C-alpha cells in the first residue's frame, strides 16, 4: 500500500520542549489512533500534521509533499477539533455547505452534498436547525459530516467525542468506523480512551511523557487478544502519566 503520511523527526518546543522527536508513517486507508498522557503533545502533533502549527524540528510529508504551516491551501485535509467549531449563526446544512464553496461546487450541489453527509451522520431532518438548538452529540456529528463533505484525503480528529456521554460516544465510534469502512479514508484519531482506540483503530500509537517520543506502535489486527492489548496499554499509560508527573514536580 502507498504511504500517505510520513512524519519524520518532528519535534516541538514551546517554552518547554513538548515533543522531542516523533517519526512514523501511515498508509492510505489506515485508521490510526494516537494515545498518550494528558499534555504530552497529541493535539500539538495533530496541528503540526494539519499545517496549523509549524514544527520546531523535522518534517511532515503528505503524499510525498511537505506540509507547510500556514499554507493549508494545497491539499484536502479534514480536521475535527475537540470542539465542534460550527458557526452558530448558520444552520447545520449551511455550515456543511459553506466549506464546499472554496472547492468551486455550485450552490445546488453544495446543498445536496450537505444533506447527504448530514444524513450519513444520522442528522437527517435536522438540516435546518441552528447548532444551538441541537445536542452536543449532534453538533459534533455535524462537525464530522462537515469534515467528510470535502472528501478529505486525510481526516484528523482530536478527541472528537470527548464531550459526549458514554452512550453517544459508543454510537459515534460505530458511526466513524462505518464511515471509514465505506469511504476508505485515512484517519488520524487522538483519544485518551484506550478502549476507544482498541475498538476502532487499525494502528495504535502510544506517545511517551513530555518531552514526548513514540513509545510504541501496535498493529491492531486481532493477533493480540483485545483484553490483553487493553491491559498492556493501560500499564504503559500509567507509567507515562507517572513519569510526566514526576518530571513536572522535579
Amino acid at each position, binding site marked *: 500500500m502507498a504511504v500517505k503520511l510520513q512524519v519524520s523527526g518532528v519535534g516541538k518546543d514551546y517554552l518547554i520542549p513538548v515533543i522531542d522527536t516523533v517519526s512514523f508513517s501511515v498508509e492510505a486507508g489506515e485508521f490510526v489512533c494516537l494515545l498518550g498522557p494528558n499534555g504530552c503533545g497529541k493535539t500539538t502533533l495533530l496541528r503540526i500534521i494539519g499545517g496549523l502549527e509549524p514544527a520546531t524540528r523535522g518534517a511532515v510529508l503528505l503524499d510525498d509533499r511537505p506540509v507547510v504551516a500556514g499554507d493549508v491551501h494545497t491539499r484536502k485535509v479534514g480536521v475535527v477539533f475537540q470542539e465542534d467549531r460550527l458557526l452558530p*449563526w448558520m444552520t447545520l446544512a449551511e455550515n456543511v455547505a*459553506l466549506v464546499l464553496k472554496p472547492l468551486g461546487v455550485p450552490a445546488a450541489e453544495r446543498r445536496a452534498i450537505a444533506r447527504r453527509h448530514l444524513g450519513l451522520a444520522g442528522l437527517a431532518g435536522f438540516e435546518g436547525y441552528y447548532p444551538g438548538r441541537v445536542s452536543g452529540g449532534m453538533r459534533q456529528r455535524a462537525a464530522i459530516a462537515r469534515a467528510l463533505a470535502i472528501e478529505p484525503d486525510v481526516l484528523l480528529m482530536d478527541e472528537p467525542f470527548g464531550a459526549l456521554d458514554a452512550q453517544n460516544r459508543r454510537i459515534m465510534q460505530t458511526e466513524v468506523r462505518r464511515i471509514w469502512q465505506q469511504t476508505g479514508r485515512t484517519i488520524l484519531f487522538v483519544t485518551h480512551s484506550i478502549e476507544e482506540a482498541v475498538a476502532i483503530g487499525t494502528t495504535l500509537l502510544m506517545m511517551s511523557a513530555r518531552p514526548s517520543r513514540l513509545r510504541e506502535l501496535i498493529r491492531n489486527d486481532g493477533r493480540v487478544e483485545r483484553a490483553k492489548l487493553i491491559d498492556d496499554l493501560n500499564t504503559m499509560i500509567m507509567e507515562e502519566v507517572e513519569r510526566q508527573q514526576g518530571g513536572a514536580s522535579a
Partner: protein
Amino acid sequence: MAQPGGGRDWVARLHLPTLGVMLVIAAVWSLLSWRYGAYVLPSPASVVRGFGEILATGEVWTHTGASLYRILVGFGGAVGLAVLMGLAAFLSPRARGVVHDVLAVLNATSVFVWIVISIIWFGLSNWAPIFTTFMITLPVVASNIVEGVENVDRRLLEMGDVYRLPGREKFRSIVIPSTLPYLVAGMKVGFGLALKVSVVAEIFGVTSGIGYIMNYSREILETQMVFVWALVMILVMMVTDKLVFDAVSRRLARWR
C-alpha cells in the same frame, strides 16, 4: 397553566405598577403646579393641551424632523467611520493600537468642547449640531465595533483556514456575523446619545429642531411647551428603541 401565565403577561405588558406610580406623580405634579404657578411648573393638563396643539399644527413634525435629520447625518457618519475603524483594527494590530488611543481621547472629551468648536468652525448652521453629534457618538459606536472585532472567535477563524475559506468568505461568514451584535448594541446606545447631544447643540445658532424650540419656549415664558417638547423627545427615543433596535436585535438573535 396558560391562564394565570397569560394574566401575568397582560399585567407586565401594561406595566401596571409603573402606571400607578405615574398617576401618583401626576397628582403630586398637579398639586405643586397649583402651589407654585404655571411659569415654574405647568399643570399636566396644559402639557397635554400643548401636545395636542403642536400635533394639530404639524409643528411637531417640523422640529422633530429637523432634529432627526441632523442626527441621521451626524450619527450616520459616525457609524460609517466607526465601521472603517473596526475594519482597520481587524486588519492590522498597529491600526488597532492607534484606534484604541484615539477612542480613549475622544471618550474623554466633553460635549461642550465640541459645541463650542463647531460654532467656531461652522458658525450658526446645521453643521454645528451635526458635527457635535458626530464627534460624541463616534467613540461610543467605534468602541463597540472594535470590541466586537477583538472578540471574534479565533477558533472559528482557524476552522475557516482549515477549510481554505478565502479571506472574503471568512469576513462575510465569520467576522461580520460575530461583530453585528456589538454594532447594533453600540448603535442603540449611540442613537440615544445622539438625540440627547444634538438637542443641546441646537440651543446654539439654529432656528429649528427640538433643542431650539425648547429654548425658545423658555425665552417666551411658555414653560408648558418646554415640557411638551421634552415629552416629544422621550417618545422619539422610546419609539425608535422599540421599532428599530429591538426588532433588529431580535432578528440578529434568531439563531440563539
